[in-house]
């Protein structure tokens, strides 16, 4: 097993990986950009190194610098987390050349599955069902226009190199094509350092179903069942759950087998996710392989009892899979809510700045993966994800109710978040009924504004504010920004004549 691992990431996932390492007795090395000096992952690691300025290309995407720091810190392996360099085969290749273990798939498999177009080709050869669309990346605009016509609008624009909705857009008419393609390419470039994009037939009202897979370095592979990620805003997942309300045991088994076949066809190792679209007729299409630990991995951990990050590390260190498919099972139901620094009342525009105070929910069946603390600054340079609230329950209903309660306790003061939006979404009768398709949000939440209950909560808020102001004026001194959490100001009673 490794003695020391470098985590080439930030935020909640870096924190989660560091925790796993500590429990395994592995030393950890954190890296950070200058705006992340006070980030939680930096505090928690045994060592931490500054990479550079905030822009990703100068820090978390800076391969040379990261390799240099790995050498300096004598780390034997690198865990890339998700996003940033996680699915960059050039980086994993570089690690291989430098004799550093990349905790993820081998660079050949990574290159194949990372190239959405290549993998589409390969998979058709072994009869994996795929969505009709371009077999190669688009060149000039004319090229895209022709292809779009051929496939027929609406079409889906996708980044060949990446996932997570980056660069992704539905294009409904020729007029939108130019700006969409250009913006998509820019987003793809800044997110993955590769601007290639392509078009696919847009499957209407699908469910997004993905299967978690683990494969060791000896050809053994198992799936850990599905995650349904149909609740998306602008192709960005915001709520995930498992099991899916749409799968019968039969369909689950069949899709699971297909997922394992995809992985083995690609000679893929370590943890991966095979994404499918499930259409209204129960027909499923292979979409792509996400060659990384995913944001939503905790819901799988909670229902299967398998620690995916520890499994990644063990597999990377050469261990065999400790279990076979038969012993794996799902218990209960888990739901993840992604908490973003966004303003749901203002078209979900990103919100950043200082978090004055945080109260994170806790209790039985509640897991909260976050990198937050009172006083932390949310930087504008990175993904707006702040935390992940994962709730487990004996069944879907109890998990859902638990999540609603937990969100009610999730206070993040100072910036805007979509906590109350998530709360209303989970409480929506259509969600409660399990009618979750990728059009859920346009269909059920487009007219969203705060519930009626709000009026009464408003009153409570006003009362609280007034009473606190009253008490403040009756004691000396006035509350200041980030009461009690501004590091540069010591707290104190103002003694007269002191």
């Amino acid at each position, binding site marked *: 097993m490794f003695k020391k691992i470098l985590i080439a990431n930030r935020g909640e996932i870096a924190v989660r990986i560091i925790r796993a390492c500590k429990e395994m007795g592995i030393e950890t090395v954190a890296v950070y950009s200058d705006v992340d000096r006070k980030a939680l992952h930096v505090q928690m690691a045994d060592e931490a190194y500054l990479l550079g300025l905030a822009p990703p290309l100068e820090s978390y995407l800076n391969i040379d610098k990261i390799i240099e720091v790995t050498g300096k810190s004598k780390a034997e392996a690198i865990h890339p987390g998700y996003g940033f360099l996680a699915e960059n085969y050039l980086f994993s290749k570089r690690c291989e050349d430098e004799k550093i273990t990349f905790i993820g798939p081998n660079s050949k498999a990574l290159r194949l599955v990372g190239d959405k177009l290549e993998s589409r080709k390969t998979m058709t050869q072994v009869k994996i069902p795929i969505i009709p669309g371009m077999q190669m990346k688009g060149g000039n605009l004319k090229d895209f226009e022709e292809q779009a016509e051929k496939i027929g609008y609406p079409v889906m624009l996708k980044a060949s190199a990446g996932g997570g909705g980056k660069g992704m857009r539905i294009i409904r008419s020729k007029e939108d094509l130019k700006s969409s393609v250009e*913006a998509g390419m820019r987003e793809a470039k*800044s997110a993955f350092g590769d601007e290639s994009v392509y078009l696919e037939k847009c499957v209407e009202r699908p469910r997004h179903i993905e299967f978690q897979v683990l494969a060791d370095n000896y050809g053994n592979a198992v799936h850990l069942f599905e995650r349904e990620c149909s609740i998306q805003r602008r192709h960005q997942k915001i709520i995930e759950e498992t099991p899916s309300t749409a799968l019968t045991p039969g369909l689950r088994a069949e899709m699971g087998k297909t997922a394992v076949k995809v992985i083995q066809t690609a000679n893929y190792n370590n943890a991966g996710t095979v994404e499918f679209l499930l259409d209204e007729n129960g027909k499923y299409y292979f979409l792509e392989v996400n060659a990384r630990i995913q944001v939503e991995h905790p819901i799988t951990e909670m229902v299967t009892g398998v620690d995916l990050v520890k499994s990644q590390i063990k597999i990377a260190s050469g261990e065999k899979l400790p279990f076979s498919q038969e012993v794996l099972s799902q218990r209960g139901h888990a739901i993840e809510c992604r908490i973003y620094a966004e303003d749901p009342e203002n078209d979900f525009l*990103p919100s950043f700045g200082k978090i004055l105070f945080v109260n994170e929910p806790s209790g039985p069946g509640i897991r909260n993966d976050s990198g937050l603390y009172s006083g932390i600054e949310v930087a504008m340079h990175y993904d707006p994800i702040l935390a992940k609230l994962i709730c487990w329950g004996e069944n879907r209903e109890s998990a859902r109710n638990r999540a609603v309660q937990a969100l009610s306790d999730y206070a993040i003061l100072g910036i805007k978040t979509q906590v*109350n939006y998530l709360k209303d979404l989970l409480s929506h009768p259509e969600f409660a009924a399990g009618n979750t398709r990728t059009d859920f949000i346009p269909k059920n939440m487009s007219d969203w504004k705060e519930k009626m209950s709000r009026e009464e909560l408003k*009153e409570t*808020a006003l*009362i*609280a504010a007034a009473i606190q*102001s009253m008490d403040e004026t009756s004691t000396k001194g006035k509350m200041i920004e980030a009461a009690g959490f501004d590091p540069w100001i010591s707290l104190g009673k103002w003694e007269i004549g002191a």
Partner: protein
Amino acid sequence: MEFEFNLEDKLYKITIEKKGEVYFVDLGNSKKEVKVQTISPNCLSLSIDGHNQTAYLADAENKKFVFVQGEQFIIQEKESAKVRKKEDEAGLIDGKQLVFAPMPGRILKILVSEGEKVRKKQSLAIVEAMKMEHEIKSALDGIVKKVNFKENQMVDTEEPIMELEQEK
């Protein structure tokens, strides 16, 4: 004691009297009896007419952030409540349109230049924050009167990126 708070562009008058342990709160349309336990400077445990509620609070400049049951409210004292110059339905201020960034960020592209004619829905600029791009489109047919920023400059939501004038 009396307070005037601004919450979501509405003004609220609140009168409080404290008798012993109890705060008598008058919200105008309703009166409440409130008991309070101050748990920390950021947490009040309230009993409003016998019903418990926990409120989390934090102060910034002249704002109070208050969180109750999953919802955050931003409360300002009256005098400090800021108002932006009134716009008409078309979003015009005396025939001119000020183009603001939807959120603070970096200006990725300025797609028009001063004096240029623009059509409604034409892209004017692209602002980036948190790796997401936001295209700013024109709300009218008109002329670019003034561009206040260059590409790669940072912009907030208070300063207009450019000014358009409606075609006569």
